[in-house]
């Protein structure tokens, strides 16, 4: 399954695009669609696309176990999860807590409005969060009579923005999410466009292998049976891994998948293991070379009122928890104006490059190596998440 972040201004047609992708790839649950179709038939009405968007919204609200901001759809090639970014706060929170993480983004721009503040903010945020590849969709082409000139004009402006942010543009596609032009089906109204549809572009994306090797984090240990989450690679009985932060070598004696003993498992998977040496909550077992430090430089996204230098907070990275202090705020970028400045504290919406110090060594990776071990959250005394961090 490939995660895609949906970026762009809230009024530029995100919900309609989600609806269109789900509808045209036939990913909407049958029962709900049938119920609406029956009503439309009984009342002699034509089923409009707005009804499908409504139905999808309802479906998402009902799926309480799934984040409301996530939508699933399937093409012939693979499954996708589309992560809507309603506000940067929600997205960073999801990202930092591991609920969602996308490598690719779709940046949606309304052709009649062009680039707006929120477009810039989301593009900037994408860059900061490691979404380096962006598919640009210029939406609402139907409102400009599918004119090439209008598309080129907006496309040029978006190109300039992406170049400035050093984001790679995978494609720039003229679409009408409402009428379905160039989303899943090729538009007959834009003969001048010879490129691929959005779904064709999505299907051509290569997930790319990360460098990280077999890694698992220990969640708990009861009487010698450790519960762990395998985040990367394959694990097999007899394998020897380095247990961080102590850096001792540990041998895997037994693997339990549910209540079944297995010889081998693949990530991602929650498992139970027995090892020749005791492991405890917060330990990380890996074949990769991981960092263990109590002082490091990181990017911090402030999600609450204030983060102050030298104040004590709690840092959580998977199952590792440490006391943490921001020792120095080196620079701050405000999401309001995207300008870099010096500051003594971070306030809501600020993104800072900071030096963090923890009371004990923390095991982490950098983003390129293993993104799961490169993100963390900062909590206040009440246990509320007040910042998200990514170690690049």
């Amino acid at each position, binding site marked *: 399954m490939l995660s895609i972040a949906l970026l762009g201004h809230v009024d530029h047609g995100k919900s309609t695009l989600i609806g269109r992708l789900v509808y045209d790839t036939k990913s909407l649950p049958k029962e*709900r669609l049938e*119920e*609406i179709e*029956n*009503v*439309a038939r*009984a*009342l002699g*009405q034509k089923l409009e696309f*707005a*009804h*499908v968007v*409504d*139905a999808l*919204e*309802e479906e998402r609200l*009902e799926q309480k176990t799934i984040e409301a901001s996530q939508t699933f759809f399937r093409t012939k090639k693979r499954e996708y999860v589309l992560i809507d970014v309603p506000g940067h706060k929600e997205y960073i929170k999801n990202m930092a807590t591991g609920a969602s993480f996308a490598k690719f983004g779709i940046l949606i721009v309304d052709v009649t409005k062009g680039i707006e503040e929120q477009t810039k903010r989301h593009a900037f945020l994408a860059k900061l969060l490691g979404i380096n590849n962006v598919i640009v969709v210029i939406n609402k082409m139907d409102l400009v009579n599918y004119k090439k000139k209008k598309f080129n004009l907006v496309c040029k402006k978006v190109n300039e923005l992406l170049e400035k942010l050093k984001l790679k543009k995978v494609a720039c596609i003229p679409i009408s999410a409402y009428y379905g032009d160039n989303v899943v089906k090729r538009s007959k109204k834009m003969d001048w466009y010879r490129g691929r549809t959005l779904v064709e572009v999505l299907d051509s994306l290569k997930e790319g292998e990360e460098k990280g090797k077999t890694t698992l984090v220990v969640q708990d240990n009861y009487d010698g049976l450790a519960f762990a989450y395998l985040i990367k690679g394959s694990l097999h009985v007899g394998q020897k891994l380095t247990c961080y932060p102590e850096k001792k070598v540990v041998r895997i004696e037994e693997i339990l998948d549910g209540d079944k003993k297995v010889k081998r498992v693949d990530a991602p998977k929650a498992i139970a293991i027995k090892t020749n040496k005791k492991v405890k909550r917060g330990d990380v077992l890996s074949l990769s070379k991981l960092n263990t430090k109590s002082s490091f430089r990181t990017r911090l996204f402030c999600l609450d009122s204030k983060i102050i230098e030298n104040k004590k907070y709690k840092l959580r990275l998977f199952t590792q928890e440490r006391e943490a202090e921001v020792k120095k705020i080196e620079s701050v970028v405000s999401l309001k104006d995207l300008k870099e400045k010096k500051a003594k504290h971070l306030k809501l919406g600020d993104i800072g490059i900071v030096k963090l110090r923890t009371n004990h060594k923390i095991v982490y990776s950098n983003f390129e190596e293993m993104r799961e071990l490169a993100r963390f959250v900062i909590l206040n005394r009440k246990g509320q998440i007040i910042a998200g961090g990514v170690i690049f």
Partner: protein
Amino acid sequence: MILILAYDGLEYNYVGEFNLKGLMQKDFGKTDISEFSEPRTMVLWSSFLAGKNLEKRILKLKNIWKFKLKPKETFFKHFKKWKAIDVPGLTHKEEEHELERKLLKMYFEENLSIKEYDKIVFEHHKENKEEFFKSLEEDYEIIMAYFPLADLIGHLSFGLKSKMRLVYKELESIAKKVEADFKLIISDHGMKAVGRYGDHSNYGFWSTNKKLGTKNPKITDFATLILNFSK
């Protein structure tokens, strides 16, 4: 000709959200039904017809759906040739309303599917709609047509906007097809979503094709307004 489209359970907020200009007409708003202990369909429509609060009188009955006013107790007494289609408290089709209440109960007892329930509701709606359009061919001074579609579908599906949008569009299309000197669209109460289901809200909806300039009128105020207009 005066035309009253009595849309049971039509919700003010959905009319706005779906941007249904044909239902909003020239003047529209919420009605005040706070004087009633509960937003009961029979009580509200009867009070609308009589121009006064009939709650106490109706609630004395064991089965309030047996309540029926005499025409002389309603604003129809001021008109020589009038027509009231399926109007609760005056000409309502007892058997059909009883069947719908029974089906609703059956659904919650898991003996009936929504599809089966909806089918009966649509049949009732179709019947009222045909009767209404036929009545327009005759020379009535006033016609009041009752459509329980939004309320009946709403009880099991008000939380599903996708479905309710279609229902509201249907009610709008009826309103748009007819012209009258004075056209009043009125509901007894609105609805609020309870999950996918719907419950009665404590206000109603009204709209007219003439500027009334009234704010938050009571449902019982309309009897006088209708009479004034006819004069």
